[in-house]
């Protein structure tokens, strides 16, 4: 089964809906040009466009319910998502037509539009990452699951810990501290920007230093290898540790990159969902106020 973009779902089924809804909305808007009054949200055309927009906004939020309703037979989640994208974009145009772009002042009515703009624009970003990031993720993981690379990392760490037992006290501490001080995730910024707070103990410096991208331990080992040429066993162990940390560096890069991709796929939801909730409140207040002070 070939992968199909949600935009192209069912032969661009909802692109047709988008064109139909937007086309009808533009026709309704243009019909105001015959009126002595300027286009605005208070004409029958304005009320019609506002009603269409409000109904669409409420329906768009139902995607959150539909995608959790695993037993629902009301269309497929993929179809709903495709419609969500196209009709969400249509809402942006319908809202502009509804208010005739009278957005210069700041009040609860214009705020409803700006909140919707934030929701739609964050949705555009979400759509972009959902269309492009999975391919990069797959490429980064080399067609394997993350668990495979995690397992490889655990294996490398185990080998290094075993190797450390036979190492001399000086660099054994460095290896063990580098293993212990490696950090991958953390808070959201760390995940999103792939920050590396890894540390290691440096016997030379006598203190804990940064081991970002495992560079410090690899540099330390590379300096120790020539110094240990008289001790064959230690030299062999150092070479092995050097090789394992090189492998570990690549594994950690791959895992952090995957973590970053997952963060990128989620971060927009921190705007999209809370602002959708606030949009619903603003929409309710907007409609209430319009009729309260008709």
């Amino acid at each position, binding site marked *: 089964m070939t992968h199909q973009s949600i935009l192209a779902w069912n032969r661009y089924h909802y692109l047709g809906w988008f064109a139909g809804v937007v086309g009808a909305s533009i026709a309704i808007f243009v019909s105001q040009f015959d009126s002595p009054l300027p286009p605005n949200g208070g004409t029958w055309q304005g009320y019609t466009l506002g009603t269409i927009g409000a109904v669409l906004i409420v329906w768009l939020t139902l995607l959150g319910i539909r995608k959790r309703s695993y037993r629902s037979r009301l269309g497929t989640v993929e179809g709903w998502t495709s419609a969500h994208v196209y009709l969400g974009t249509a809402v942006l145009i319908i809202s502009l037509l509804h208010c005739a772009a009278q957005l210069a002042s700041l009040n609860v009515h214009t705020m409803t539009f700006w909140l919707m703009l934030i929701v739609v624009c964050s949705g555009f970003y979400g759509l972009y990452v959902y269309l492009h990031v999975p391919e990069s993720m797959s490429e980064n993981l080399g067609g394997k699951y993350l668990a495979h690379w995690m397992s490889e*990392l655990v294996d490398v*760490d185990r080998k290094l810990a075993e190797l450390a037992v036979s190492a001399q*006290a000086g660099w054994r501490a460095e290896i063990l501290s580098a293993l212990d001080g490696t950090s991958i995730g953390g808070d959201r910024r760390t995940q999103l920007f792939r920050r590396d707070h890894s540390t290691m103990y440096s016997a030379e410096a006598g203190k804990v230093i940064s081991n970002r991208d495992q560079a410090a331990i690899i540099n330390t080992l590379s300096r120790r290898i020539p110094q240990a040429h008289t001790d064959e066993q230690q030299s062999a162990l150092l070479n092995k540790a050097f090789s394992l940390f090189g492998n570990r560096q690549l594994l950690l890069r791959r895992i952090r990159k995957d*973590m970053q991709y997952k963060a990128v796929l989620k971060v927009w939801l921190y705007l999209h969902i809370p602002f959708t*909730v*606030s949009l619903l409140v603003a929409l309710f207040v907007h409609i209430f106020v319009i009729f309260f002070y008709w």
Partner: protein
Amino acid sequence: MRFLIKKTGQTDPSDALIEIEAQSFAIGPKSEHLDVCPGLDFDLTIRRAGSDRLKIKSKGGGFFVAGRAFKSRVLDIGDAFQVGFYTLHITRGTLPSDLCIEVTQNEITPACERSAMNFTQAGLRIRFWSYLLFFLMLLGTFLLPFLDTLDAAPYSGLAVPSLVPTASSWSAGPLHSAHVTAGIDNNCTACHSEVFDVIPDTACLACHDQLNEHAVITAANKTHFAGMACTDCHIEHMEPSHLVNNNPKVCVDCHGALLSWAPDMPVAGRFSALDHPEFKVSLWQYRPEAENNAMWQLVKRLDAPDQPAVEQSNLKFPHDTHMDASKMQADNNGSGLACVDCHQIGAVDGEVSVISMEKNCQSCHALTYDLDDPERVLPHGSERQAIAEMESHFYRKARELSFFDARERLYSEAAHQFSDSGCVTCHWVEENPAMPLQERWRVAPVRISQDWYPAASFNHAAHMNTPGISSESSSCLSCHGADKSHDARDILMPKKETCLGCHNSERGGSADACISCHVFHPAKGSPSLEVRGHWLERAELDVDVAQ
């Protein structure tokens, strides 16, 4: 007193056990300290605090006991603490007085298990932010403004920071500057007097109580104006402001076709050569045969080349002569009279002043009648009073001068004034020799049109080339050909083509809206306060319409 330090996992057995004869010792990276915990970057002092107790004190770092961090702690035999990636167990040694510390390297926890890698579970979740924004929005956009509308906001009457939302945040847009005034701009209910209902006309008329309807509302035409609300044309809170609706469609909606109920109303579209009717001049028509109160009748008619309209003011006035510097000079300075020497123009409203004998003519055309007494003038406006003045003056003179024949002089001067050079200079005078002296001459009454286009407003000041009032006549003459007019009967009003030179909706010229010239609420019309009071009784009106 002896400490035994046991290190597990050592390849060299000689490194596995260290004996120390002292009351205390230190572990750390410094050369004088024991390096039993490689990787530790601070000092840890271990001191005996009793037979079975130790006091652990760190300098620059910390250690952990049962997961809790400490800088200093007394521990008993059997306890353990963690420092760096080592666990140190306190046990009894081979001798009762010995205390043994077993140093064990911790298992290395895989890095991927130590840190959070799930984005949505790191920190506050989406649901938290959603709830937070929900309550903030509900409070800021609804509850606080709503309480403000009830004057029940917790901050009512207090000087609150401008960031606290008030009912003004519910305003759909800025008010027109005319409405940004005390009592309106911060008081929604000044106009929105009824919630969940449209703004009633009475809300507008509460202030605009002097306004007139578009026409005189009669029983015959009232149904055609019924149902028109102020808000049909005047919309507030628009961007840009649209309180004054200058869209020609407002007018063309009705006037774009012949109105069956007002057949005299011309069909008009936007201001262009084709869509707008030719201008009709309003003239006072003199009807000498009519009664006094009907002697003058206002008529509107076209001033077409084949049927030129004629002014019937009954005045003689050659504009060209008065503007010819070779014949007439204002101040003997070589220049002729300028238009504004007689027709003063209001600097703000652009209205042209009314011409009168006293104000504009008599400085040159003084009604003197006795060269011996040049200060003495005839009263203007009444033939009888003029003759009475002469009669009185000449008979008084005769009493003083024995040779003066008052009667002869009275008759000759009266004939001279009425027929030769006095009244007759500016007026049409009819003589009936059969009548006695007091009724022999009759000066035709004068009525000068003050507004030839009363249906349109025109600000002369705004149309002058220079700001304010120009003393030059050129800007006046560009529309009014007064310098070529020798007859007061000439109509000197510009025609539609003159206006189209600048204002033409086909070209998108300036000020081409209907209300640029025509006032919607005229000075004469049915008072809105009265008419709309009746319209509020919609039920009754609906019955009328149905009938």
